[in-house]
């Protein structure tokens, strides 16, 4: 190797070269686009789920309750507070943030003599505009946590690299072509591996539990499924929900809407996982090991064996009361038995849940119509408390011209499910945009396929609401469209057109201008000149239901108080304005679904227990 004494002097050439130093802070250097600097948090999209706090390796993040914010389903009023005396700027919180509201910016200057200033609640330029400055007003020499640059996002969440799995494990379904032909259950259900994989997606933020009306311990039962212990899971479910087979199929899944994963990805299939737990466990009785509490000697009558009735019976039975459940139908389930078509909720699943509740010692009086077979007044005398869970059992009608030619939804559904199936037409028009309307439509479609195999048939729906406004769930709409049901949103029925012989020819519709008025009340307005004639030989009205209180004698009925929205008014114990009469379910709440009915039932059951123990003063 040639060493030299003189060669080093070549370096002199740099004596007069331009230095490569960056004259910071007089010459600035922008940090990289992905720089992991200080946090910002979009308070609008932040759900306060606390995943960031959970994953932080340094416990630098604490969830702080913000009094100004209101908690709502799927959103708590907590927001992360970050301690820069702990933070290591690893960005794990960014990658786990389900809404992607937490971001790292490219700001990184905070120099202060007071260590307390290093703890702060990150907000962003919209929430705290006074702390964020546009580029021309921003100076690094003033930069700190209260002098930051606007629109300076650095390391942000990327779904492709997120720590959570945004996509669901696909639920195996019967393909539309096949399921259209019969009433088989089209959701096949997860198998063990799929269920575990899906359960593994849960981040355990418990936002869903807040959103669930019945406050099921969702995280816990999903964790049990993840650990391959469906029995444990079912036990957890039964703490709050005695009808998992039903709920696992037809629950409105408020939890999934609240699921933090749903913000940028697909919500966790909480409903299907519940169904998995209920379906996997073969024997409820031995698995759950539940026993009625010590007998109290009190008797409670429950009118209606729907979700509310079943639940209240279950909870009361567990407290040791004797319960008798009355229902006009031949089996349990109430609306669940008549409404949801068999392809969504087979009778066997309902019976499974009902049978388990029966096995706890609840007496069921089916085929017994209160007011006819048993008198309500007698029940009031015979029982220590009465629970009304009668639900909405009557269909509304549009009352347009010739409406009497139409079929009512509930009658159609009930007969198809537990009675003799209808003879349907070839061109069916369904009026309505809710879930019931879609059930009707899809059921009609199946009947068409059964009754006119190979022939050209069609099912059309007409709804006042436009896409997006439709009350039916997205999932239902998607499935219905897969099955080739034609939608005509934003059209209102004007007249049922009949021919000379009185047979239905079709439906005349008007274009809808708006469905709700300025106050947000339901008050449809129409374009009078835009009309459409829709051909059809059968029209089914599915625009809503209403309750039937005819079993209550008039003098009692007059004592019942109702809310503005025509609901039974109950107190915090679930008691109506009549002493010892409690109520729950569709006749009380506005959600009108099974899980809210369970929630009502839970309140009422506790109320009844307290009432029977003589704790509460009557209303």
């Amino acid at each position, binding site marked *: 190797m040639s060493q030299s004494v003189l060669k080093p002097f070549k370096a002199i050439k740099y004596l007069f070269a331009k230095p490569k*130093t960056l004259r910071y802070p007089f*010459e600035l250097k922008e940090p990289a686009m992905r720089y992991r600097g200080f946090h910002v948090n979009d308070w609008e999209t932040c759900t306060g789920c606390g995943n960031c706090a959970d994953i932080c390796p340094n416990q630098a993040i604490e969830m702080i309750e913000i009094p100004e914010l209101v908690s709502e389903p799927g959103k708590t009023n907590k927001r992360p507070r970050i301690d820069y005396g*702990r933070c290591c700027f690893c960005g794990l919180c960014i990658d786990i943030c389900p809404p992607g509201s937490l971001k790292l910016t490219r700001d990184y*200057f905070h*120099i*202060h003599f007071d*260590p307390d200033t*290093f703890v702060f609640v990150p907000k962003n330029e919209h929430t705290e505009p006074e702390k964020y400055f546009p580029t021309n007003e921003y100076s690094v020499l003033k930069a700190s946590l209260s002098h930051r640059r606007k629109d300076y996002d650095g390391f942000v969440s990327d779904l492709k690299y997120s720590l959570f799995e945004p996509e669901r494990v696909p639920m195996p379904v019967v393909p539309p072509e096949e399921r259209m032909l019969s009433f088989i259950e089209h959701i096949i259900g997860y198998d063990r591996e799929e269920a575990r994989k899906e359960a593994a997606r849960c981040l355990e933020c418990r936002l869903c539990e807040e959103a669930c009306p019945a406050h099921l311990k969702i995280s816990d039962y999903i964790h049990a499924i993840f650990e391959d212990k469906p029995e444990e899971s079912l036990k957890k479910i039964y703490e709050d929900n005695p009808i998992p087979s039903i709920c696992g199929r037809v629950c409105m899944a408020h939890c999934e809407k609240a699921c933090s994963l749903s913000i940028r990805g697909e919500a966790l299939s909480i409903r299907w996982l519940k169904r998995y737990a209920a379906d996997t466990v073969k024997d409820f009785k031995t698995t759950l090991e539940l026993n009625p509490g010590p007998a109290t000697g009190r008797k409670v009558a429950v009118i209606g064996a729907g979700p509310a009735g079943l639940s209240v019976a279950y909870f009361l039975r567990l407290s040791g009361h004797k319960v008798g459940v009355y229902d006009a139908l031949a089996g349990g389930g109430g609306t669940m038995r008549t409404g949801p078509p068999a392809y969504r909720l087979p009778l066997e699943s309902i019976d499974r849940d009902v049978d388990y509740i029966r096995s706890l010692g609840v007496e069921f009086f089916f085929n017994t119509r209160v007011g006819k077979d048993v008198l309500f007044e007698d029940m009031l005398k015979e029982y220590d408390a009465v629970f009304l869970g009668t639900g909405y059992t009557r269909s509304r009608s549009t009352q347009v011209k010739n409406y009497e030619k139409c079929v009512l939804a509930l009658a159609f559904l009930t007969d198809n499910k537990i009675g003799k199936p209808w003879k349907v037409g070839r061109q069916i028009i369904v009026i309505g945009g809710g879930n019931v309307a879609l059930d009707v439509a899809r059921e009609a479609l199946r009947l068409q396929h059964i009754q006119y195999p190979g022939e050209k048939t069609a099912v059309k729906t007409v709804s006042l609401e436009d896409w997006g406004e439709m009350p039916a769930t997205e999932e239902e709409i998607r499935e219905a469209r897969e099955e080739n049901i034609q939608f005509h949103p934003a059209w209102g029925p004007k007249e049922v057109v009949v021919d000379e012989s009185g047979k239905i020819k079709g439906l005349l519709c008007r274009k809808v201008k708006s469905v709700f008025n300025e106050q947000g009340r339901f008050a449809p307005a129409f374009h009078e000149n835009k009309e459409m004639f829709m051909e059809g030989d059968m029209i089914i009205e599915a625009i809503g239901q209403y309750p039937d209180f005819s079993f209550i004698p008039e003098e009692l009925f007059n004592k019942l108080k109702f809310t503005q929205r025509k609901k039974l008014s109950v107190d915090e114990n679930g008691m109506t304005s009549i002493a010892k009469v409690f109520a729950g379910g569709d006749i009380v709440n506005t959600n009108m679904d099974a899980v809210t009915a369970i929630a009502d039932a839970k309140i009422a059951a506790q109320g009844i227990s307290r009432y029977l123990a003589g704790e509460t003063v009557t209303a």
Partner: protein
Amino acid sequence: MTKKSGKMDRNNIGKWFKSPGNMGQKYSLHALYFCTGCGIIEIPPTITTRWDAERFGVIPVATPRQANLFLITGYVSVKTLRYIIRSYEQMPEPKYTVGFGSCPINGGMYWDSYNTIKHLDKYIPVDGWIAGCMPRPEAVFVAVTHLWTLIDKGMATGYLKYREHYAKYRRNQEKILGELEWPPLFSKEEENEKSREKVAG
């Protein structure tokens, strides 16, 4: 390009005559080269070609006697704390301490380690903290400009605080390190403190 005149008043002769001490301290910050923690990794870039802290008169020096700026670069283990205190006490006054990154503020990454102290300001006074893990060279430069401001305003008085509360500092130090092998730096103050405590207690 930001105007140079904004922060640099190095060539302001008037100021030099008014308070030569402050001006001297400001533009001749000699940092003690002590690799206390991982933050030291950003010091070499700071003092070498890319950023060149010498432009601001900031250079690393070999011994605490020659230094007036102490950069606590990152976490401080118990064993290091002893040397930090020693070095700090050897530095001539006025002296400035700057804590680097999360760790000295509240434990940082090592908040649950059994061998690192969590709050540096319990043991020696700290005049400024820089956020980051670890702070970038740019942040060090901005920190220097902030320190100038503090010196100007007479707020970088950690060393005075150390004198004032020496007994408390010494007590905290001894709680962690046991009996210290060197005599107290300000014995009088300690006595004063003790007598004051006696009166109070």
